[in-house]
């Protein structure tokens, strides 16, 4: 049996106020395997750590129990102390006598008793702990970035600039994401295209970046450091190597269809380049509306193309490649549909969403930047903006705040006033959330310059009457019901995860939150990592955020990838399941329980047995319970360890 040292921390008064530490160390020292039982004011401090080291050396301790705060706080700290003393880190365990004892109980007697019990439990656990060693696996130093919006591009550029190869995938036929659709950006009113196009150009010509537009990730196998991806390149029906982007085909194409880029404010041709600054500047045929692909007629583009680039026979192709790390940057969409029915959204032409209004404002947009009503082309003089359209609504829309609407609505109203000086903008808002550098100032400059009337309340109904849009709202500050006969209404629709996020999450085997955003490993301390090692999150795929934060997170994800790639191998956590193969019957019930596909089949003495791929295993232990024979065990949380804890707790 190993000799155990127990170290009890006072945490100043935090623990010592409620727990009688003197009594604890005395009681605990009666355990036969405990050779050291001592205390210190702050064990996590430098002298505290040195104290532990001194005792280890003097008493040749084989295991450590640190009774202090939560292991979520300092497990790493004390395990590295153990390592420094030459004790395997997994032979050091913490007993939580702060968060789960001294802070939640008032009675000194009860708290002291509980602390003693908890420490004895941990002692019994450590007595049954085995040393565990991290293993290493080789690593493919190549990154896959999914989504080529501003965060994906930022990520890709950073990784590429560090000298690693990147594949940048986007489902659209161009890179740049939603930012390509924006007119100006808050809080500086920088022209979005002007700050974006240098980046798209840089991405496109970077020797380390391979852009894969009009492509989707369809399968991911493998594990951190060694992902095997299948990427589908959707058929564009145009040979992009030949296409020069001259646009003759676009001009001659007789078929019009819905323009996603213009959000329906203008139609586009079936063969099209979405916008003049698109990268790559190549045409794509929309197979849903193309007359030739539907009815085998027309084909005028093929006849006219000087480069003979049109190829109606083109098929989807699959690329297979290995990557060491993945960055998910799949962005957002706006909430649409029946949830916004009371605002007449989708029913009346002059009720627009924020993105449509961006297009109206854009000098390359459907009205060349003039603010005109889609219904009759007239300039709106009374313009109502409705914030929180679907956001913060737990009944119909989404319960969360979409974070950017307060800012862009102020921007919209200000741009409107610049363009229509005799117009009046009204903004229905509930709270102004302008927590960002220069944001609050921006709001008030907008109020000042745009003469915006902010109305504090929500709108209940919008409908058409006498050629106007009747808005019934409330100003709760004056308690007056407000009726505005508006010429145009702009909704700040809630941001939701982009379509296909759920599917991608299941392909990547990472979690999503209840709204479908990708789930970060820890909301405070690990916001960039997903719950699957080697998969990182950036931008609005994780939660609604503005461009500034999106870019920052893109860079942060890149730095995580780069840190990984700076090593030649990758360390694998030893808290994994282990199969005792001589006793395994090969029923593979564990395989069903494993969410990571970590259970593999192995030949052992002429039969198939289960084998845990340690690189894939995340250490949940679900398989250990699924195993009928109990031959799968989890290292670090083994059956004998947990049972020893249970027994020790109930000793009389």
């Amino acid at each position, binding site marked *: 049996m190993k000799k155990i040292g127990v170290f009890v921390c006072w945490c100043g008064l935090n623990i010592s106020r409620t727990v009688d530490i003197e009594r604890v160390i005395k009681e605990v020292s009666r355990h036969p395997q405990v050779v050291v039982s001592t205390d210190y004011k702050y064990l996590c401090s430098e002298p505290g750590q040195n104290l532990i080291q001194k005792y280890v050396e003097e008493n040749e301790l084989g295991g450590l129990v640190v009774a202090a705060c939560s292991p*979520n706080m300092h497990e790493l700290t004390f395990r590295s102390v153990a390592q420094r003393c030459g004790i395997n880190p997994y032979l050091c365990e913490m007993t939580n006598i702060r968060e789960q004892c001294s802070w939640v109980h008032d009675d000194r007697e009860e708290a002291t008793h509980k602390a003693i019990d908890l420490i004895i439990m941990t002692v019994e656990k450590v007595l049954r702990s085995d040393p565990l060693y991290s293993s290493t696996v080789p690593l493919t130093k190549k990154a896959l970035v999914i989504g080529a919006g501003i965060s994906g591009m930022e990520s890709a550029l950073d990784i590429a600039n560090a000298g690693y190869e990147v594949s940048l995938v986007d489902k659209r036929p161009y890179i740049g994401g939603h930012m390509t659709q924006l007119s100006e950006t808050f809080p500086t009113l920088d022209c979005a295209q002007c700050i974006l196009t240098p980046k798209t150009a840089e991405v496109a010509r970077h020797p380390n970046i391979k852009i894969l537009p009009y492509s989707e990730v369809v399968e991911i196998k493998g594990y951190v450091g060694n992902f095997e991806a299948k990427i589908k390149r959707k058929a564009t029906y145009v040979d992009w190597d030949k296409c020069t982007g001259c646009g003759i085909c676009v001009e001659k194409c007789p078929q019009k269809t819905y323009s996603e880029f213009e959000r329906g404010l203008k139609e586009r041709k079936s063969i099209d380049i979405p916008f003049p600054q698109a990268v790559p500047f190549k045409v794509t045929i929309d197979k849903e509306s193309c007359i030739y692909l539907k009815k085998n007629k027309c084909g005028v583009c093929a006849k006219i193309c000087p480069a003979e680039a049109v190829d109606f026979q083109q098929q989807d192709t699959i690329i297979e490649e290995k990557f060491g790390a993945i960055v998910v940057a799949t962005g957002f969409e706006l909430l649409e549909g029946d949830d916004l029915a009371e605002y007449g959204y989708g029913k009346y032409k002059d009720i627009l969403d924020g993105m449509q209004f961006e297009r109206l404002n854009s000098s390359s947009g459907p009205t060349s930047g003039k603010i005109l009503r889609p219904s009759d082309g007239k300039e709106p003089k009374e313009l109502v903006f409705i914030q929180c359209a679907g956001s913060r609504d737990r009944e119909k829309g989404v319960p969360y705040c979409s974070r950017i609407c307060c800012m862009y609505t102020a921007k919209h109203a200000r741009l409107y006033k610049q363009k229509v000086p005799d117009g009046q903008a009204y903004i229905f808002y509930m709270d102004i959330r302008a927590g960002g550098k220069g944001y609050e100032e921006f709001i008030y400059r907008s109020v000042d310059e745009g003469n915006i009337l902010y109305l504090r309340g929500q709108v209940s109904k919008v409908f058409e009457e006498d050629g106007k849009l009747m808005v019934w709202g409330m100003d709760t500050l004056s308690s007056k019901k407000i009726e505005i006969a508006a010429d145009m209404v702009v909704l700040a629709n809630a941001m939701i995860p982009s379509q296909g996020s759920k599917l991608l999450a299941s392909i990547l085997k990472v979690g999503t939150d209840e709204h479908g955003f990708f789930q970060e490993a820890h909301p405070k301390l690990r916001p960039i990592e997903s719950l699957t090692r080697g998969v990182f999150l950036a931008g609005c795929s994780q939660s609604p955020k503005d461009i500034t934060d999106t870019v920052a997170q893109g860079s942060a994800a890149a730095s995580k990838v780069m840190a990984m790639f700076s090593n030649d191998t990758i360390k694998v956590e030893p808290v994994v399941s282990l199969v005792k193969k001589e006793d395994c019957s090969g029923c593979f019930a564990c395989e069903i329980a494993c969410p990571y596909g970590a259970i593999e089949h192995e030949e052992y003495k002429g039969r198939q047995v289960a084998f845990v791929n340690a690189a894939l295993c995340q250490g*949940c232990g679900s398989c250990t319970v699924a195993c009928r024979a109990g031959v799968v065990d989890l290292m670090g*949380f083994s059956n004998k360890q947990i049972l020893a804890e249970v027994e020790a707790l109930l000793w009389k």
Partner: protein
Amino acid sequence: MEIVAFLCNWCSYAGADLAGTSRFKYPANIKVIRVPCSSRVNPTFILKALANGADGVMVSGCHPGDCHYTTGNYFTRRRLLLMKRLLEFTGVNPDRVHLYWISASEGTKFAEAVKEVVEKVGKLEKNPMSSIEGEIRYEKK
């Protein structure tokens, strides 16, 4: 009264920590064993606890759909349901075992849950196994 709680590391253990940082008080009868996921809780552990005299067992994991390991808590839910039926069949009051879903942000919920378990288990008779002569804790030095 002794109650053994198995808390998953990611949600419920963190929720219990939050109850601590927020100083929500709850009875001291509860002793926590940390497991990576609620699906690591082998029904054997619960039976062992009851056989050794625990008056109640609490198991808590992430909310369904929010499992850190994607699907672990679904297994827990099914296993515990079955387990409770087994307890009933063997004559053990299934009210000794309580399953909760408590997230890392639900400190209040954790404190309330503990109170609830203590109250419910308190209404049951003392676990008869607890009066059976158990193992000796350890030799006094």
